[in-house]
């Protein structure tokens, strides 16, 4: 990197002194994301206040050949928004304007730093919602959601972020701008929006994001079912899906998680003695249909062995049930100093068996593992409570995490459903992709960013890639 003081001065000239953080104490704030197992202190932190400032910053960094890492609210769970020494961290939270809401066409245009929940709140008076709802939605940004292809409980019915992004203005590493996608979702040429979403910041920065908004369902029913065994709860999930019903959400929590929630300020009235609870939400635009499907789901839950099925009687009760689920990660923070929120996906039918294996792994390593997850998608979140200041314990957590990943892969699953690879899961990528496929991904990254200056060292383990240089033609 060019001389840091010089770079800081040049960046200050663009964004103002207040928005360049050079002091170590300030930079430490940005040394982690939501995952406590990785820590990297950036050399410089810059917070541009407008699209124009952002463009100027990226063009300056391009001219100086300086790598950079885009970052939203820093709520990611894979170390994806951490900047190494030699990189500048670009924090985009000041680009937080909702530029347009088009009710008639069900879309909004936003800057990348808009907070997910704030977009939802702005859409609501128009009778619309932004459906992807990660648990961190009160803090996480749409730009970060695009980078990670974020999910959330209601993605079972409404789809993940990739299903809600219509068009993007993208700032490439060299400072050039491209527009991809269109307001109706049809692409101009190949689907570059589809390729960009989930690229974890490796292809550039989305400076303007056109999102799809969907009508707010007119009727909603929320059920809480409790079970005396994880296996029967898993079987209930399969029974609901097999009946052809697609609930808006179908979430599961195990006993460890239930107790953590009930011991916290987020207590939702979950039965403490249950081995598992299922939170099932049925929604739609027709109250009669929602009621009929709710009755069917209730019957299926009971037949599958639910000890009780409770229906939220009021909006307040519904919100309370959901608060317990959405704040479960916070509640689990009470169990110990640190929490690793893992993320993997398995075929739905494999959930009961995989959960039993995870419990065995936890027991073997002497760890507390709590499960709260998107059961309808098979998207597991085994959460390991530990103290990161204990190196031996941290090592056990790493080893157990690796075994959990291997278990999910062996069941036909994958290593991440919504948190991304970042740096945390680089080591697992060769377990699911061969060297040729990893090489292809690396080559695609180089099309967007030939010098690999945006968010370097993430997603693709370069050492495991087969060389993808052009094959010689005889």
């Amino acid at each position: 990197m060019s001389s840091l003081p010089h770079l800081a001065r040049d960046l200050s000239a663009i964004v103002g002194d207040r928005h360049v953080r050079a002091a170590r104490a300030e930079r430490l704030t940005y040394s982690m994301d939501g995952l406590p197992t990785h820590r990297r202190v950036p050399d410089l932190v810059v917070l541009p206040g407008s699209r124009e400032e952002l463009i100027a910053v990226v063009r300056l960094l391009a001219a100086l050949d300086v790598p950079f890492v885009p970052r939203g609210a820093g709520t990611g769970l894979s170390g994806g928004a951490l900047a190494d020494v030699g990189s500048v961290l670009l924090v985009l939270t000041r680009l937080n304007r909702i530029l347009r809401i088009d009710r008639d066409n069900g879309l909004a245009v936003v800057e990348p730093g808009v907070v997910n929940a704030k977009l939802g709140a702005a859409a609501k008076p128009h009778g619309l919602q932004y459906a992807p709802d990660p648990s961190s939605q009160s803090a996480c940004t749409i730009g970060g959601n695009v980078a990670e292809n974020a999910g959330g409980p209601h993605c079972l019915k409404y789809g993940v972020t990739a299903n809600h992004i219509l068009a993007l203005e993208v700032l490439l590493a060299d400072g050039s701008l491209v527009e991809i996608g269109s307001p109706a979702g049809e692409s101009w040429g190949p689907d570059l929006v589809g390729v960009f979403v989930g690229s974890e910041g490796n292809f550039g920065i989305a400076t303007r994001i056109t999102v799809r908004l969907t009508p707010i369902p007119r009727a909603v029913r929320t059920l809480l079912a409790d079970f005396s065994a994880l296996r029967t709860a898993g079987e209930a999930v399969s029974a609901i899906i097999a009946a052809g019903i697609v609930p808006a959400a179908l979430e599961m929590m195990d006993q460890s998680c239930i107790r953590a929630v009930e011991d916290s300020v987020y207590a939702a009235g979950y039965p403490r003695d249950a081995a598992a609870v299922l939170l099932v939400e049925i929604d739609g635009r027709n109250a009669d249909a929602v009621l009929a499907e709710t009755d069917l789901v209730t019957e299926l839950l009971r037949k599958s062995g639910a000890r009780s099925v409770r229906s939220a009687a009021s909006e307040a009760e519904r919100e309370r049930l959901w608060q317990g689920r959405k704040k479960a990660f916070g509640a689990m923070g009470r169990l110990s100093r640190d929490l690793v929120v893992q993320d993997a996906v398995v075929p739905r039918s494999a959930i009961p068996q995989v959960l039993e294996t995870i419990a065995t792994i936890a027991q073997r390593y002497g760890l507390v593992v709590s499960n709260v997850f998107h059961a309808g998608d098979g998207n597991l979140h085994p959460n390991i409570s530990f103290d990161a200041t204990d190196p031996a314990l941290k090592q056990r957590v790493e080893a157990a995490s690796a075994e959990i990943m291997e278990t999910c892969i062996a069941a036909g699953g994958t290593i991440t459903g919504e948190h991304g690879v970042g740096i945390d899961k680089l080591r697992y990528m060769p377990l699911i992709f061969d060297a040729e496929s990893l090489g292809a991904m690396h080559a695609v990254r180089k099309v967007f960013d030939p010098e690999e200056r945006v968010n370097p060292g993430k997603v693709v383990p370069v050492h495991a890639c087969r060389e993808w240089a052009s094959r010689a033609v005889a």
Partner: protein
Amino acid sequence: MTILEKVTALLGEGAVLEAGTDRVPRIAPGSPDAIALLLGTAHQEGWRVRIEGAGTWLQSDAPADLALTTRRLDRIPAIEPSDLTATAEAGIGLDQLRQQLADRGAWLAIDPPGLAGRTLGSVVSTATAGPLRHGFGPIKDHLLGVTFVTGDGRMVQSGGRVMKNVAGYDLTRLQAGGFGAFGVIVLVHLRLRTLPRADVTYVLEGAREDLTQVGEDIAAAGLTPAALELVSPALARRERWVLAVRLAGSPALVAADEAGLGAASGGGRFAPLRAEEAHAFWMRLAEGFAVRPVTFRIGGVPTASDELLDLLQHQLGDEWISASPAAGAIRWTGDASVDRLQRLRRTLAGLEVPLTLERAPWALRGAVGHFGAYREGVGPLVAGLRRTFDPGGALVVATEGT
């Protein structure tokens, strides 16, 4: 040795099919590995290869040294009804796939234009969604992953077999609608739904503008059709325009929507179709787009739908047209010249509406391209991706046109 002799030595006589009228050798490899071997050789030898499925959609007329058809890749390695996933080879006909899924109580909720035997690979690589796009999204939303072979014979996997997956970059979406420019799809992992317990179709005939209003009223009334399609008289084989509403899902949901349909139709009387009539209606609609020489789709926001239909009528004529206004999709088929298509594409570009040429004779698509000119800055990215996945330019695809 001739190309045919070399290919025969490489893959055996069983892979060689009878050539088409242009006498270009037609090769049908029997496995993904055989396709990789063939394309690796083509790359080394400098052969130009055109890709075919069953040969029922895109015309097999591109100038090439050989034609590679995926039709022998017709296996279905896995159907998992409890997980609602399936894995199928790219050359399987959609009719066969549908039947096998239905036998297991599962449903792939797509209804692309074309004949029933059109291959899965053709549908994915051209991203040709049909009326069910209204309720279930574009083709890419039904894909969990793909395996493809690049123009120089490398086998690449993308995505996986589970419902959510963000491991690595999403090359599956690059392949969906890439028209084969980035490789030949050989295997597809699919997201399924439970076969709907209730599936009914209603039609209403009338003036286009009246039906457009009814469509808007249906959306405003909170109904959730699987398809809501506005079809021109010629395509529907009716006297007037037709608004077709397909309701599919649980009996409760369908019954509720049926009850709301009358109220939303502004006094219009939707006529229910018997099951066999409904099947024939949707099949005829799909097949209609494979009959005439040129088919394209445009994507405009719902409020632009009327204006876009007027524009098509003015510039090309509206005899064969089908639109999902709420999904922002319009498909046109007929006969059109290079000049007319280019003029229309320019006009649409001014309205921020992309036109994707889905099928046309080579003389036309070679000139106009599936995509035409890209927006500023996009061309170098697409060119870079093409160089990455087909470094020798073995795959003959008219992406941009001349």
